[in-house]
């Protein structure tokens, strides 16, 4: 399957899973909203230019927003993580030229620890910005702090599950092409 097709299918699947499964779950606690959809932005290939990455993040978030009737909320958060992503990858990538030899960020291409840090940093960033925008409408500081921490914990668990269930085998590509 070509990368474009693969990412288009992922685009649709992530939105459907978020809207029809995760948002439909009976609420456990007011601090916990299970988010997984932003993993799509984290899985986008290295080869995308930064402009394209930011735009894809914006468009992806906006599509989800029209389902939840909050136009702009998830779009703003996704744009932020898509913009910050290249910086975080630049800091964390351990092997020289891994972003040329592999297609997308994963455990295989980046290694366990850097990939975990990468997911953690972007998850916290995404949730903090999202809850900050919600917090401006209502709630207090405890709400903000509690929701960021609790939602991040749940999201990380979901990401771990997804990574284990759908293990992405990545072939090493030499850069002679």
């Amino acid at each position, binding site marked *: 399957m070509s990368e474009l097709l693969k990412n288009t299918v992922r685009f649709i699947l992530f939105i459907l899973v978020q809207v*029809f499964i995760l*948002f*439909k*779950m*009976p*609420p456990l606690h*007011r601090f916990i*909203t299970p988010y997984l959809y932003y993993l799509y932005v984290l899985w986008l290939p290295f080869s995308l230019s*930064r*402009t394209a990455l*930011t*735009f894809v993040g*914006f468009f992806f*978030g*906006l599509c989800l*927003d*029209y*389902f*939840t*009737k*909050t*136009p*702009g*909320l998830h*779009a*703003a958060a996704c*744009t*932020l993580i898509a*913009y910050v992503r290249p910086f975080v990858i630049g800091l964390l990538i351990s092997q020289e030229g891994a972003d040329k030899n592999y297609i997308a960020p994963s455990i295989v291409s980046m290694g366990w620890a850097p990939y975990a840090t990468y997911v953690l940093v972007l998850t916290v960033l995404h949730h903090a910005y999202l809850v900050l*925008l*919600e917090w401006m*409408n*209502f*709630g207090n500081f405890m709400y903000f702090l509690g929701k960021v921490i609790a939602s991040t914990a749940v999201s990380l668990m979901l990401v771990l599950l997804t990574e284990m269930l759908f293990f992405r085998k990545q072939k090493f590509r030499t850069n002679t092409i």
Partner: protein
Amino acid sequence: MRNVFLFIRRHFNFLFFLVLQIVALSFLFRFNKFHQAAFLNVSTEITGRINERYNNVEYYFQLKKTNESLVQENLRLRQMLKENYESPDSNHRLIHDTIRGDTGRSFLKYKIMEAKVVSNTTSLPDNYLTIHRGFDQGVRSNMGVTGPQGIVGSVVNVSRNFATVQSMLHYQFRVVAKLKNNNETGTVQWDGLSPQYVTMKNIPKSIKVEAGDTVLTTQISSLFPANLMIGTVSEIVPDNSSNFYILKIRTATNFSTLEYVYVIDNLQYDEQRRLEDSTRKKIQ
């Protein structure tokens, strides 16, 4: 001028990011204030269709609960039939004069339309429902929406075949309500804590309130007819800083199992609002 272009070219990524952020935030704040956003009509139509597909499947799993709640509602309505009310003395027989209602349609104040719920959330801080009845089928903004057990919310946005309903579980939703026992009115709104409870404010401490008291809508609210069920008082919290209680109310509607709702069209509202507006202008 050349420097400006050079600056834009050098920081293109950052500027592009800023532009997208501003677009996203302006969408968000516009929507929070006026419930309008770019492409919302088109998107409501599209997401509505996808939601409908999903609901067609999910609906079967809820059939039993839906049926139960409709039977309960039928029971309540049958209990209200005029044949059920008859005093033993024939001199004082209670007769409901329905002629006015039948011939003079102008007396009809509320028109009720049924609608199927195709999408519904309860876990977010701002919850909306999508119903499969839109502009072409007579739904307009600012109509009340009630379920089989109690009130649900109000219509905020309409596309051709679908409508978006702001649920009672939304931080902006307000409705005037009264206690059944003593007709004391207050405002009901959601505090965002649990989808089963809403709060009622402005009930003075001099009023006797007990847990289990019924809370109903009043005719003051332009959205709903009087005496629709909202919920029952479950906890009474005295607000130490003021002379009022904060009542915690268990909603009559179970929002997570909602399948059918009724949209209420207040046919006399336009006239009422025109009068109120002109009065306001006269006084100024």
